[in-house]
């Protein structure tokens, strides 16, 4: 058990220790260019140990752990490496959280689904085949990948806190390629959840790909100017990334968060709220406690446009002289870092069924296109994450975008770029769509902004 490793470490490290052991089994099926191509399995286990000794913190990780446990012959070298790392490590008042007092149970969240865990290879292949059959069309090629994961996590620390949970994960992704001359078009979508996808979820995935493909077959000229632009839930990344980066305690400590001194201030549109929610049932990122033994809780980051708080793990919290928000994430290698679980973008008036993959049947644009005389619907941008993201300024060529004329989509736009500043745009939102859905671990609707710079290339 990881508790035994931590106990062993406690006897050598005068400031305590914490550790994580994780094991996962993954089964994958891949259909390549329209045909079943491979099936795979992965079994992996590893442990990550952190010690505090003479006021300094060190970390070590290993996959040499043997079977279901960290055996003594593996524990000793891992501990030596963690202590060696601590010799160089920085002095830090890192305090390992004790068990809740009075003793309380961890929050309940369903992370393990028997149906997903028990799905056979034949079931996985069946899902892929049915998807393929419904996506195939003349002149196009389809890739489909199905993935199922079963995980077990154990965490413990020298202050007596501990926890363990099992989880399942299911992923279905499809991309449809159409190459005509030198025009290459790819439309893709994915389902991600802890349980098997429902028939409705698979139908939604197919509808989403088909709708975007249908509109993309016709290429039209790009509009130009300061225009209304609607970002789909997937296209929203360029506008979300600066905000989530700025809300991390790590950015605050580095002095690069534009939101640093803005807690309690109205920074965003009053209808805009953002929550980190590790207790959302059926999501892969959900868990009862984080990777540093801090119990999970739902965390309001922005409420009614007002900044509420930042996320912290134990280390950034210790350095910022605050408390961990339960956002410690650690892999087998390296040290824990603050990270989000499920990011939920909510807005006033939203009717949300945040458990399902989609809140409502697909309607491209989420009902926001009606009164747009000339504008753009952006589904994917190229180069998001490059450059100085945190400042909020962005400028990207479009990967997949559509022209909107007199309220309807008239075709795909190829050679256009959009630019703006995320903070400026979020101050006043043109509208939130009624098409909220999960994109990976982010829940968001389409969002419309007015006066976004659109340039033709």
């Amino acid at each position, binding site marked *: 058990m990881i508790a035994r490793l931590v106990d062993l470490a406690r006897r050598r490290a005068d400031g305590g220790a914490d550790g994580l052991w994780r094991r996962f089994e993954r089964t994958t099926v891949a259909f390549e260019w*329209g045909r079943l191509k*491979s*099936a795979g399995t992965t079994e992996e286990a590893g442990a990550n140990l952190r010690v505090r000794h003479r006021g300094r913190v*060190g970390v070590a990780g290993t996959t040499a752990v043997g079977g279901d446990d960290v055996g003594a012959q593996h524990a000793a070298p891992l501990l030596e490496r963690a202590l060696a790392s601590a010799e*160089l*490590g920085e002095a830090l008042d890192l305090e390992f959280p004790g068990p809740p007092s009075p003793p309380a149970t961890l929050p309940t969240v369903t992370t393990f689904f028997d149906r997903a865990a028990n799905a056979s290879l034949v079931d996985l292949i069946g899902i892929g085949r049915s998807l393929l059959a419904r996506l195939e069309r003349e002149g196009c*090629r389809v890739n489909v990948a199905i993935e199922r994961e079963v995980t077990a996590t154990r965490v413990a620390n020298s202050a007596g806190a501990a926890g363990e949970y099992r989880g399942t994960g299911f992923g279905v992704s499809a991309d449809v390629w159409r190459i005509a001359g030198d025009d290459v078009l790819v439309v893709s979508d994915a389902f991600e959840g802890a349980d098997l996808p429902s028939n409705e979820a698979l139908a939604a995935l197919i509808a989403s790909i088909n709708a975007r493909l249908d509109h993309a077959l016709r290429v039209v000229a790009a509009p130009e100017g300061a225009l209304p632009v609607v970002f789909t839930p997937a296209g929203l990344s360029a506008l979300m990334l600066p905000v989530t980066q700025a809300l991390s305690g790590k950015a605050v400590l580095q002095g690069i968060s534009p939101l640093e001194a803005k807690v309690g201030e109205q920074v965003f549109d009053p209808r805009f709220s953002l929550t980190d929610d590790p207790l959302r049932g059926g999501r892969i990122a959900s868990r009862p406690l984080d990777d540093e033994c801090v119990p999970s809780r739902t965390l309001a980051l922005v409420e009614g446009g007002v900044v509420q708080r930042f996320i912290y793990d134990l280390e950034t919290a210790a350095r910022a002289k605050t408390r961990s928000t339960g956002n410690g994430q650690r892999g087998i290698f390296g040290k824990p870092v603050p990270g989000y679980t499920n990011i939920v973008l909510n807005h006033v008036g939203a009717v949300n069924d945040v458990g399902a993959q989609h809140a409502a049947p697909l309607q491209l644009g989420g009902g926001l296109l009606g009164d747009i005389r000339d504008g753009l619907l952006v589904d994917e941008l190229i*180069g998001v994450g490059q450059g100085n993201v945190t400042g909020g300024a962005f400028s990207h060529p479009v990967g997949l975008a559509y022209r909107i004329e007199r309220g309807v989509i008239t075709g795909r736009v190829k050679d256009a770029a959009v630019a703006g500043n995320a903070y400026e745009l979020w101050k006043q939102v043109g509208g939130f769509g009624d098409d909220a859905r999960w994109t990976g671990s982010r829940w968001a609707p389409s969002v419309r902004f007015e006066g976004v710079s659109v340039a033709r290339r």
Partner: protein
Amino acid sequence: MIDRLTAALARSRAAYTEIRVERTWSTAVTFRGRRLESATASEDQGGFVRALHAGGGWGVASFTSLDRLEAMVARAGELSRAVPVDPPIRLADVPPHQADALLDLDGDVRGQPIAEKKRLLEAYNGVMLGVSDRIVDTLAVYRDEVSEYWYVNSQGTRLHELRPEVTLSGTAVARRDGTIEKGLESIGLRRGWNSVQDKAAGFREVAERAVQLLDAPMVKGGTYPVILDPELAGVFIHEAFGHLSEADFVYENPQAREMMTLGRRFGKPVLNVGDNGAASGLRGTLPFDDEGTPTQDTALIEDGILVGRLHSRETAAAMGERPTGNARAISFRHPPIVRMTNTYIAGAPGGGSFEDLIGDVKLGVYACGAFGGQTMLENFSFTAAYGRMIRDGRVAELVKDVVLAGNLFQTLDRIDHIGADFRWNQMGGGCGKAGQYPLPVTEGAPHVRIEEALVGGEVGKA
């Protein structure tokens, strides 16, 4: 180990089976500003099995516990049988090889205490911080590894390799009021401890440039003749063209095959492009790929004409071409897929120097270094680290926010002048594809001129 793997192979009932086992020792040290963020040592080990039954698809198994080797060989076989494939998967012939290739460790990094690595990085980090009080933040990362590697397959190939790698990177952030600029140094070598000594100059240079960029104007957006420095030209050819020459993109996609028909003109006669996994001492260099195929120098574009592509054994068989040794996996966690190694634009003999390229440019942009780049199929966007205007045939003022965006086919066709000053860019980082990142690769090029390209310092500012 080889004996153990061979014994496990012998028990496989599949028509074809291969096993890879890796054991990797690595250390990493990170400084942020004056603060040591972490110094860790890790050990990673595991195995990978791939099996092919007649009429079956690939059965694949990866695992961290070597006790599971025999069970996973059996499992891979079962998985292959469970996925019938028609027409069947064929593999191009590769003669079996037996080799014990211990690459030059050049000062085995495992022999150096981690405190020494911290001292080295602290010195380079200190050089960046010492450049100016405008340098408000730095990020410096040292990473090394030695990987012991075993590969066997049921056709008689038996390989044992020892592969070193060491990377250094530094980011210097300069700030004045609301203006923030950065400089980026990156070194990546398939070598050891000796090769990362005396590297302070590069760290100083990027920090100095970050400070200079604070005063630099934004490049004025528009269409210019653009000269790419060897670093950016290398990144460009890898990202914008290299990925299209990976045969797994085309082999079962008739439209893609048509787009990438051998014999198609891709550029002017001055353009020559290739990928050389056998080049001496580079990060993308290895004696064999992860299917046991020897690496080689593969011509992709010759005198402007598409002449080749990069293959695995499977894609080569499907297209009736020869394997090129480009089936690579980033670790035992992944199957080998078609990847680049060391990709290059060849220098043009008689192409002359940088000065020759800019001599007749009245107004142009010299785009240098790469902060990042992304391609989506035929469209690309690259952010240069910095640029300089070219005025009347001479290098003029420093400019920032140089973003190149465009269409691959048009841009390749507009390369009209290639220098003779070829060099390999030995950078860190790596290439990403299908969830496998970072794969060690190298890019190389001379100075390259594009007669007309869109530079968007103000892309999107309508």
